[in-house]
Every structure is written in structure tokens, then in C-alpha cells.
């Protein structure tokens, strides 16, 4: 835990902080501003979900958070170190780990344990410590039994768990998942989400989950909504999904239970927002 005392007040340290960050892609036709003046921070152990339609700048923002892209304006800092510091960039990337969409593009070795070892090896971690970390990381994603196997024969969900493990082996404090479940079947998706929840709850790992699946956002501590490069709203799942206009304007979707709940409230039956299927069912039972 990164807790520090200042003037006698104990506060949880921000791992990641972005201040007034903008990013423009340059091309022959000029500049396109993909991220506009975004400020956000992520604290130890938080579960944050980032929503927004295709092309709203989510992935660009994600890449700014661990220095894969450097801001055109503003600063991103990790534990106070700006991502523009070339001497610290590897340290920053080991603290802010990223998992991408396509499971096939994220493996480097033909044996799973070598793949997991790749990150810490590059950080100059010693051999004994590496094998300890490999074991710990595979254990955390429930793939220890596969350590001597090859990643190519795994299912999509298993491959993504390996991708998560290879990030974990670098001991990050934040895990960013950029649509990491988009290419998976429902079972694979569940596997990956369960793994991420477990890491968040049991190991207190902060998570930033970028997704198009609204139901993945229901258990978030905070939801950020992005539209045309800006973060237009931040709030709890109840606040975000309770605001039907926001959902429409940002081309998002209500989870089915919310949608039905909303229709019932329009007809004067309900007053609360129902987030999950269970909440909706309970609300209906109370009515009858």
C-alpha cells in the first residue's frame, strides 16, 4: 500500500494522474485532436470503467496513461513521475500494465513460462526472483498448470489470461484492459472478467477497464464516459445508467435490466434505477 502522511492526514496515494491532457494525431491533412483536455486520477485498489463509442478517443487515452503515446499538451504522471521522462519510462510501464484486444498479438514466446518471464527479464530482475514471479503470476490467473505448454493451443480466454499474467509479472499497480474481452466467446469473457475482479478484490490491484459491454461496467467503483475526446461524465454505475439522456447522447446503451426498469418507471411503476437482473426482479416482486 502506498499510504503516506501529510499534516497528520492519512491519504491513499494516487497511482496515476493525468492533468489537462490533450493528444493530436498528425497527418498530411493536418491535426486531429483525439483527446481533449482530460484530467483523471486512479487510486490504489479502484475499479474504474471507461465507456464511449468507437472513435471517441478511449484507446488513445489508454496509450497516454503508460507513455506509449506522449501528450501534446498537459502531463501524465505515475507516482509523480511524468511519462515524458525517458529515463523512467520502463519503470512507468512496469507500474501501469496494459492488455489489448487481440489475444493472438500479445505473446512473444512459444512456451508459456518464457512468455511470462519476458517482462521481468527486460526489467533486469534476477533469475530466482523471475521464476518466483512467473509462478505467482500464473497462479493469480489460474493458469499454473499450463506453464510448460504453448500459448498457441489455448482458447482465446486462456490466451488473454496469459497476457494478463505477463503484465502481472512486472508487478504493476494498475492494470489497463483495452477491450480485452471483445474477441472472446461468452465463457472466455467471463474467465477474463473473473480473473480481473479477483486481482482487484484480493490483491487490491487498481483496474481501468475499457469496454463496449455495459454489463461489465455495473460493478465498477466509478465509470468515466468519453465523447469526442473529452471525459464528459464521471459517476457511480447508478448515476451513469440512471441518466438516460447521457446514455443517448454518448451513443451508449442501457443494460437490458436498466432498459426494462426505465420503461416501468416511465409507466409509473418504479422510481429507482435497476442495475442488475436481480435488482429488477426484486423491484417487480415488491410491486406485486
Amino acid at each position, binding site marked *: 500500500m502506498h499510504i503516506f502522511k501529510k499534516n497528520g492526514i492519512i491519504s491513499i496515494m494516487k497511482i496515476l494522474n493525468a492533468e489537462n491532457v490533450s493528444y493530436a494525431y498528425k497527418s498530411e491533412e493536418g491535426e486531429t485532436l483525439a483527446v481533449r483536455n482530460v484530467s483523471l486520477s486512479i487510486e490504489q485498489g479502484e475499479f474504474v470503467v471507461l465507456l464511449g*463509442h*468507437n*472513435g471517441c478517443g478511449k484507446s488513445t487515452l489508454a496509450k497516454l496513461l503508460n507513455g506509449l503515446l506522449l501528450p501534446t499538451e498537459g502531463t501524465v504522471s505515475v507516482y509523480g513521475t511524468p511519462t515524458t521522462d525517458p529515463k523512467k519510462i520502463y519503470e512507468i510501464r512496469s507500474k501501469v500494465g496494459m492488455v489489448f*484486444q487481440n489475444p493472438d498479438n500479445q505473446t512473444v514466446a512459444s512456451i508459456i513460462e518464457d512468455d511470462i518471464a519476458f517482462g521481468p527479464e527486460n526489467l533486469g530482475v534476477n533469475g530466482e526472483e523471475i521464476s518466483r514471479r512467473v509462478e505467482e503470476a500464473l497462479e493469480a490467473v489460474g493458469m499454473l498448470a499450463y506453464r510448460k505448454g504453448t500459448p498457441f493451443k489455448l*482458447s*482465446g480466454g486462456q490466451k488473454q489470461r496469459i497476457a494478463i499474467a505477463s503484465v502481472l509479472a512486472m508487478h504493476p499497480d494498475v492494470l489497463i484492459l483495452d*477491450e480485452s474481452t*471483445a*474477441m472472446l*466467446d*461468452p*465463457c*472466455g469473457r467471463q474467465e477474463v472478467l473473473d480473473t480481473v475482479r479477483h486481482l482487484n478484490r484480493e490483491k487490491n490491484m487498481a483496474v481501468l477497464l475499457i469496454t*463496449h459491454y*455495459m454489463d461489465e461496467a455495473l460493478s465498477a467503483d466509478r465509470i468515466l464516459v468519453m465523447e469526442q475526446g473529452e471525459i464528459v461524465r464521471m459517476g457511480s454505475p447508478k448515476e451513469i445508467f440512471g441518466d438516460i439522456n447521457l446514455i443517448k447522447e454518448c*451513443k*451508449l*446503451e442501457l443494460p*437490458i*435490466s436498466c*432498459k*426494462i426498469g426505465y*420503461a*416501468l418507471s416511465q*409507466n409509473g*411503476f418504479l422510481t429507482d434505477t435497476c442495475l442488475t*437482473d*436481480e435488482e*429488477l*426482479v426484486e423491484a*417487480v*416482486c415488491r*410491486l*406485486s
Partner: protein
Amino acid sequence: MSIVIKNLSCKYGAKTPFEKLALDGIDLTVREGESVGIIGATGSGKSTLLQHINALIKLQSGSVEVCGIDLTERKPDLKRLRKHIGMLFQYPEYQLFAETVREDVMFGPKNFGMKNEEAEDAARTAIGLVGMDWEEVKERSPLELSGGQKRRVAIAGVLAYKPDILVLDEPTAGLDPAGKKEMLDLITSLRQKTVSTVLTVSHNMDEIAAYCDRVVVLADGKKVFDTTPQELFYRDDLENFRLQKPHVVHIVELLAQKGVVLPHVLTEEALEDALLTYLRERRGK
């Protein structure tokens, strides 16, 4: 009959330690005008089945007949077969290759022997069918378009050669909610206007429930169910086949457990109506 498959089996890696029976005695008939969904866990044989329909894989045992073309013949007319079938693989936008939308969409019709002018007409019509403006997009590079637009251009490339059957592999995977809705609306409108027979492979049960007349379930290469979505999704043994229920069905079943019994609906709209009717009746009492 559009597609008649009898006793189809297929083995991968025969006579090696990796031998796997990917399809095991499949019988399947798809009639003209039907929309059939094919579902099953990863590795259940869905893709292998699709590949047989378009003769992308050599027939090992059993028979496949598509639009009157018998694939058990020594030299079936594959070109004619592939003109009958408009096949869209997963993430079809990765298969766009030409420098402009026009060239990309014209590629199919030209390959099937249309002259330039005729092919351009066909491309224009196809782009219109997928809800895009020909004049606006024809000279643009497919790479500049958004994800949902690219996918529509890919569909236009298939529609341009006027197939009789549309085969879609995960048509909404990777799209955002707005893109998903657009795609489902597009498929529904295509069924009314041009290609009435559609075969869809999907992991998204909500989608299958919404627009398929019939669902075929594969498990370990075998066909285990072939029935209506309504009957299938209200079964209580779906977990055995690693299948999830559509959200709407989940809600209806949870309600039933608590004593609120509703009709077996499949779509959001139907559930909304059913609940409102139920609650109004209650209030009336």
C-alpha cells in the same frame, strides 16, 4: 431447398496424435427464406461447418448440396457455388484491400464476369443497400472509414455479386452498441429486400434470439439441437453445452422463481410489454 447436408463428418489431423473429429454426422437442411443461427462453444465445429457450405474444405464423408450444386461430385462447379453464397468471415473489415471503396466493392462482381460498367452499377446498388452514400464514399480509402462503416463496405462487397444465401460469422463482434444495433437492423432489412436466406454463427445469444427463426446447436462436432429460439432458450440444460441464456430469458426465469409467471418471450420489447401487462392487471385487482 437452399442447403441440404447429410451425415457430414470431418476429421482434422487424421492418423496423427492430434486427430480430432471436428464434425460428427451432421444433418442440416436450410430452406429458402429461413434465418438460421448456429451456436455452440469454441471448438464445437461451427466454423468447420461453414467452410463446408462454401467448399473451402474438402468433403471427407457425407454429402453437401447447396442451391442444387452437389459437392460430392468429382468436379463441382465451385465458381457457381460461390456466387450463390455471400460469405462474411469474422472481422471482414480486415479483408478490405483496394485503394478505394469503389474498387473494393466492384472486385467481386468483376470476378464473376461482369463488365466494368455493370459492376459499378452493382457496387452502387450494394453500397445503397448497406445504407451508405455512394458519391460520398466511392473515392475514399476503406482504411479511413470507422469500424462499423468498414464492416458495411465489406458486406456491400459481398452483396454486389447478388448471392442467394448470406453466411455471417460473428457479424457484430467488436462493434460498439450503436454499431451492433445498426448491423442487426441492416441484416433484418437485407432479409426483406435482397437475400432472404441467412445463416449466422454467433456467440451473442441476444442477437440469435432477436432475428433467427431457427437455432442449431453444435457440441463436440455433433448437432445436439435444431429448434426455435423460444424452445431452445427456455430449456434448463443449456449449461451442459457451455451456452449462456439471452438476458431476457434470464430475467423471465428469475421472475418465475419468485412466482411472477410471464410468457416465454425473447426480445426486450416483448418482455417490456409482458411486464407492463402483468403489473397493470395486478394493479387492477
